[in-house]
C-alpha cells in the first residue's frame, strides 16, 4: 500500500526530469529562432510606426508611414512589376516542370531519362549571383552568346536588359531556368506515387497518353500543383538577388520589385521605419497567400 505512492512519486519525478532534459535539447534552437525570427517580427512592426535611421532612437509617428505607402509611385510601380514577374515565372516554370516530369516518368524511365533529370536539376545549385553574372554576359548586346546566335540567324541584336519592355521578362527567364529543375523533382516524386494499377487500367480502357495525363495524372497531382504554385508565388514575390545583380532596378524603374524597394529604402536611403512598413505589408501578403493555399487544401479534403 505504501509502496505505490512512492513509486508514483518516483515516476513523476522522473517525468519532470525528462521534461527538463527535453527542454534543454530544444533550448539552443529555441533561443536562436526567438532572436532571429520572432523578435524581429515585433521589432519590424514597431519600426513601421516610427521614423528611424539608427543614428537616433526610433521616433513614434503613428500611421504616417502606412499613409504614405499608396501614394508612393516607386512602390506602386514596384508592386506592379513584382506581380508581372510572378505572372511570367510561375505559370511557365510550373507547366514546364510538370510536363517534363510527367513525360520522363511516362516515356523515359531509363538511364537516359535519369540523366536528363540530373542535368535539368543542375541550375538549381548555381547561386543566384553566379547565375545573374553568367546571364548578364550572355545578354550582352555586343557579343553576348544570345545576340551572337540571333545575328547568326539573321536577326538584329536585342538589348535585353537595357530596354524597358525586355528587362523584366529577361530576368524572369533566368528564374525559370533556375527553378524548373527544382519543381520537376517534386513533381517527379508525385508522379511516381501514382498507383501503377490506375495507369494500367486506363491503358486497358484504351486511353491515349494525352487522355491519361489529362484525366489521371493531372488530377492526382493537384495537391502538389497547389503547393508548387504557392511556393512559386512566394519565391517570385521576394525576388532580390537577380534584380540587384542584373539590372539594379533599371532601366528607369522598370525592374524595381518589392524586395528591392525594401532594400533601397532601408540601406540606401537609411529610412528604416518606412522600409519596415513595406516589409510588414509584404508579410501580410505572404500570409494571405498561405491562407488561400490552406483553404484550397481543405476544400479538396471535404
Amino acid at each position, binding site marked *: 500500500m505504501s509502496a505505490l505512492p512512492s513509486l508514483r512519486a518516483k515516476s513523476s519525478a522522473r*517525468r519532470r526530469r*525528462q*521534461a527538463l*532534459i*527535453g*527542454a534543454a*535539447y530544444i533550448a*539552443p*534552437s529555441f533561443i*536562436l*529562432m526567438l*532572436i*532571429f525570427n520572432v*523578435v*524581429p*517580427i515585433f*521589432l*519590424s512592426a514597431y*519600426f513601421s510606426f516610427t521614423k528611424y535611421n539608427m543614428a537616433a532612437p526610433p521616433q513614434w509617428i503613428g500611421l504616417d508611414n502606412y499613409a504614405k505607402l499608396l501614394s508612393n509611385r516607386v512602390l506602386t510601380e514596384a508592386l506592379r512589376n513584382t506581380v508581372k514577374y510572378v505572372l511570367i515565372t510561375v505559370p511557365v516554370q510550373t507547366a514546364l516542370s510538370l510536363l*517534363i516530369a510527367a*513525360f520522363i516518368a511516362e516515356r523515359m524511365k531509363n538511364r537516359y531519362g535519369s540523366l*536528363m*533529370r540530373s542535368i*535539368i536539376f*543542375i*541550375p538549381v*545549385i*548555381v*547561386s*543566384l*549571383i*553566379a547565375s545573374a*553574372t*553568367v546571364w548578364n*554576359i550572355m545578354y*550582352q548586346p555586343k*557579343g553576348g*552568346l544570345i545576340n*551572337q546566335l540571333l545575328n547568326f540567324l539573321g536577326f538584329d541584336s536585342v538589348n535585353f536588359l537595357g530596354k524597358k519592355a525586355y528587362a523584366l521578362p529577361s530576368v524572369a527567364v533566368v528564374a525559370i*531556368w533556375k527553378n*524548373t529543375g527544382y519543381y520537376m*523533382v*517534386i513533381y517527379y*516524386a*508525385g508522379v511516381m506515387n501514382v498507383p501503377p494499377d490506375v495507369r494500367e487500367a486506363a491503358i486497358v480502357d484504351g486511353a491515349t*497518353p494525352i487522355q491519361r495525363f489529362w484525366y489521371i495524372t493531372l488530377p492526382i497531382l493537384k495537391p502538389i500543383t497547389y*503547393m508548387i504554385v504557392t511556393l512559386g508565388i512566394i519565391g517570385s514575390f*521576394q525576388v*532580390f*538577388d537577380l534584380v*540587384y545583380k542584373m539590372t539594379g532596378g533599371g532601366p528607369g524603374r522598370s525592374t524595381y520589385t*518589392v524586395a528591392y524597394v*525594401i532594400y533601397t529604402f*532601408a*540601406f540606401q536611403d537609411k529610412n*528604416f521605419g518606412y522600409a519596415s512598413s513595406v516589409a510588414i505589408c*509584404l*508579410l501580410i501578403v*505572404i500570409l494571405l497567400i*498561405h491562407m488561400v493555399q490552406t483553404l484550397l487544401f481543405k476544400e479538396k479534403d471535404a
Partner: protein
Amino acid sequence: MMKKKNLTPGAVLGIVLVTLFAILCLLPLVYMVAVSFTDSETLYIKLRDLRPSLYNYWYAIVKRDFGTALKNSIITVVGSCLLVDIASAMAAYGFEKKPVPGKEALFQGYLATMMIPGQVVLIPMFVMINRAGLTNTYAALILPMVGAFGIFLMRQFMVAVPNELLEAAEIDGCGEVRRFITIVLPLVQPALITLTIFTFNAAWNNFLWPLIINTRPEMRVLPVTMSTLASNSTTNYGMVMAGATLTFLFPFVLYIFLQRQFVEGIALGGVKG
C-alpha cells in the same frame, strides 16, 4: 526490351524536346566555363582563343580577393552546417522523444516561422547585430542559419528511432548525452546528410544578408565578392566567369557525389511541407 515501347512520333518529339531543354539548362554553364578559359577580352570566342590556362583563375583568386572570399565562404559554410545539424538534431530529439509539456504547440510555432519572408526580419536583424557589435564576424553569418525546416526534417527521421533501444541503453547505464551521441545520431545519419546539403547550399549562396552585415572587404563571402567584381570590371569577362565557375564548383562537386540525397531531400521537404 525496346520493342515493347513502340516509339510513336509523339514520343520521339517529346524525347527531343526534353533533350533540348536539358541542353538549354547546361548551355549557360558550359559557356561560363568556356569564357573562363579564354584570354580574349571580347566575347567573340574563337576556338583558337580557348586554352587550358588557369590565368583567369589565378588573377581572380590572387589579385581580386577571391581567395579571401573563398576562405570566408568555407568557414561560414562549415560553421553553419555544424551548428544547424547539431541544433536541429537536438531539437528534433527533444520534440520527438521527451515529455516536454506544450511541445506540440511549440512545434507548430516553429513551423509557422517558415512562412516569414527574409526581407521582413532583415532590418531588425541588421539593427540587433549592429547593437551587439557582431558586424563583420562569422557569427553574424552563422547564427541566423538555424531554422524550422531542419528541425522538421530531422523529426521525420527521429520518429523511426526505436524507444525500446533507448530504454535498453538507459537500463544498461548509458547516460543521456552518450545515448544521444552514440545511438540517436548514427540512426538519423541520412537526415543529417540531407540537412547538411541544404545548409551548405543556403549558406554558400546567401547574398543579401552578408552583403549588408559584413561590409569589410576581408569579411566578404563569395557571392558578395562575385557581385562587386563583376560590376567593377565589366570587360574582363574571362576573370568574371572564372569567379562564377569557382562559386559553382563546390556545390557542383557535392551534387555529383550526393545527388540522391539532394533529390530525395527536396522531394521529402516538398511533398510534406
